[in-house]
């Protein structure tokens, strides 16, 4: 029992993971709306909890922004299989899929203490994912202008790749990244495909038209893939390290951002 009330550090759910400069917790597999509520709880209690990184995997779910066409996805199945539920989230158009075998990281971080630069924060998340991948033997890369982490064919120059390369599968997406900022605190974060069935992604990609190929750590490495829990421990470490580069309190409040 803590002396301080409300969701302070010791009231955070889940198993603590080692991470410098923030509190990382492994939550195992939880439903999407529960995780959303949890994020909201922690965001509001941020003054007490400090920066938090939640690591987890979701039950299968499609999430769609306000422009998304959930009705296509939520239609009753013809073959008797359970439909994948659809959650609308208050964000821009993208529809995406989360499910078992995908490591989801929700970063509840005070952006105000980090120079308020949202793009920089996205880049730091990418760095954290890339270094995590590197420890798993996968060479992840940034693809300029396309937030997320990608894996390209060996010897490819990612900077020169275009839609066609994507369509031909020469560059594949391994992690999606996206955040929302409420009250100065970030929410959401990254979703890293570790070892999962990619089929559900196909339902949200309009045919050969978009052509984003998804991939997983398991597909990109010949060897065995550690458990999601182990990858979470790794990611806690790496993401925390990446975020530490802009962490308080050294910043000059007046702003001169590097």
């Amino acid at each position, binding site marked *: 029992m803590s002396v301080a009330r409300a969701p302070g550090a010791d009231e955070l759910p889940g198993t603590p993971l080692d991470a410098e400069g923030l509190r990382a917790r492994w939550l195992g597999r939880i439903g999407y*709306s529960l995780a959303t509520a949890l994020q909201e709880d922690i965001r509001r209690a941020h003054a007490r909890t400090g920066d938090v990184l939640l690591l987890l995997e979701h039950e299968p*779910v499609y999430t769609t922004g306000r422009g998304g066409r959930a009705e296509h996805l939520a239609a009753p199945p013809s073959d008797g299989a359970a439909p994948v539920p659809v959650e609308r989230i208050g964000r821009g158009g993208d529809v995406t899929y989360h499910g078992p075998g995908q490591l989801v990281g929700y970063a509840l971080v005070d952006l105000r203490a980090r120079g308020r*630069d949202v793009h920089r924060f996205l880049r730091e998340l990418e760095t954290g994912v890339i270094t995590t991948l590197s420890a798993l033997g996968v060479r992840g890369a940034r693809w300029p202008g396309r*937030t997320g982490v990608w894996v390209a064919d060996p010897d490819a120059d990612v900077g020169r790749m275009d839609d066609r390369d994507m369509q031909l599968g020469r560059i594949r997406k391994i992690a999606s990244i996206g955040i*929302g900022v409420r009250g100065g605190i970030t929410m959401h974060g990254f979703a890293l495909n570790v070892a999962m069935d990619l*089929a559900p*992604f196909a*339902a949200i990609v309009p*045919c*050969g038209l978009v052509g984003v190929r998804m991939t997983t750590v398991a597909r990109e490495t010949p060897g065995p893939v550690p458990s999601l829990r182990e990858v979470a421990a790794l990611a806690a470490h790496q993401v925390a390290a990446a975020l530490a580069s802009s962490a308080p309190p050294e910043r000059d409040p007046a702003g001169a951002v590097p």
Partner: protein
Amino acid sequence: MADVTMPRLSDTMEEGKILRWLKREGDRVEAGELLVEVETDKADMEVESSASGVVQQLKLAEGETAPVGAVIAVVDAGDGTGRKAVSAAPRQAAQPTAAAKPPAAPTTAAKPPAAPTVLPPATPAERPTRAAVSAPPTPSPHPKSTAASGTSPAPAAVSGPQPASSRGDAVKASPLARTLADELGVDLGAVRGTGPAGRITRRDVEQARARPPAGGAASGDAGAARREDAPSTHGSVASGGVRRVPLSKMRASIAKRMTDSKREAPHFYLTTVVDMDDAVRLRAQLKALEVEPSVTYNHMVLKACADALARFPEVNARFAGDAIELLDEINIGIATAVDDGLLVPVLSGANRLDLVAIAAQARVLAEKAATGRFTSADLSGATFSVSNLGMFDVDSFSAVLNPPQAAILAVGSVKQRPIVRDGALAVGHTMSLTMSCDHRVIDGARGGRFLADIKRRLENPAALLLPGGAPA
């Protein structure tokens, strides 16, 4: 008057997209109150107004983009001062102090603050159209707030923060526990709290769940159903006689892919008319034999294409910059209309399937297209496509190539038309085929031979029944 401008949310930000207005024209806004959500890259951020007054004009519709510094809204401070630019500010204060906050902000107080992250934003009742707000502004937002909370179904995720839910205040539970209880269909009144002062915790709810809830729906299904009830806000914005409908992801990708295709692939078109009388007869015979599933003309076209592609590997190919890639697999994309666009599910290994197997698989794909339930194999790897608009009584048309494929076949309707047979005018069933070719891969003569081969197979439809296709 004060102009609110697109704020700079990052050093590298050049423009931002209006994700959602949190105020409407005519609403009162206080400096420091949330005005808009802005998206830049993959981040969306709440932004506060830095001016107080009545929102005179929202310059951009939701979904529109503006460069940093551009005016996005005009606020009338009612102070008679001239217009000055005020940048919208990213929300700064997590715990606003009384001093920093202007005296009264009734709208925010009445709204559950968490709503934007989970709810489809505004119900039709709450959201006036832009046309409607050019009427005299009504600065009192109170009735609207109550109307909104009365009409919008409250999803699980927001019920937590709302103080007086149907469960009442008598039960002490953490917001998380409430949410979880909602999600799992657990009645909090029947749960014993083990937290401080008998507060119900997440664990209590989880344990209570072990006892099956009475008549509770599976959590996932219930969640999905709730969302489906929610009104769609995939809205259009009317202004000056123009209704702007923001592009869905599918429309945006169709726009981009088709433009790329027309720009990069030099198209040319070959048209032929197929005498379908024998195919009509074959179909009638299969029907009389009660072959299941029933075979359509389009299935015959698919089969003919598969066999022809096996014979003409240079058509089953794609342009790859410094080479032409010939593809071993014969995978035929079937252009399929869906609500807001087009899907191209793929018949994989089509040359290895007989006619009835093609019919069966095509049917499964069509069903999946209707329900949106695809596997990755269903949508990827097409090497050739067929688009059929015969059901819309289209006689003939030309299709746009679906890159990187080198050819697509556009199929018209099968119906009785005048036809010349043995030097005499007759009436017969015909169907037009128009093949679009990527000239970088296929030349006219080669395309012509391929198209003639398809025609020959359809005019001699016994070929469609032979194992492994017809002889060359």
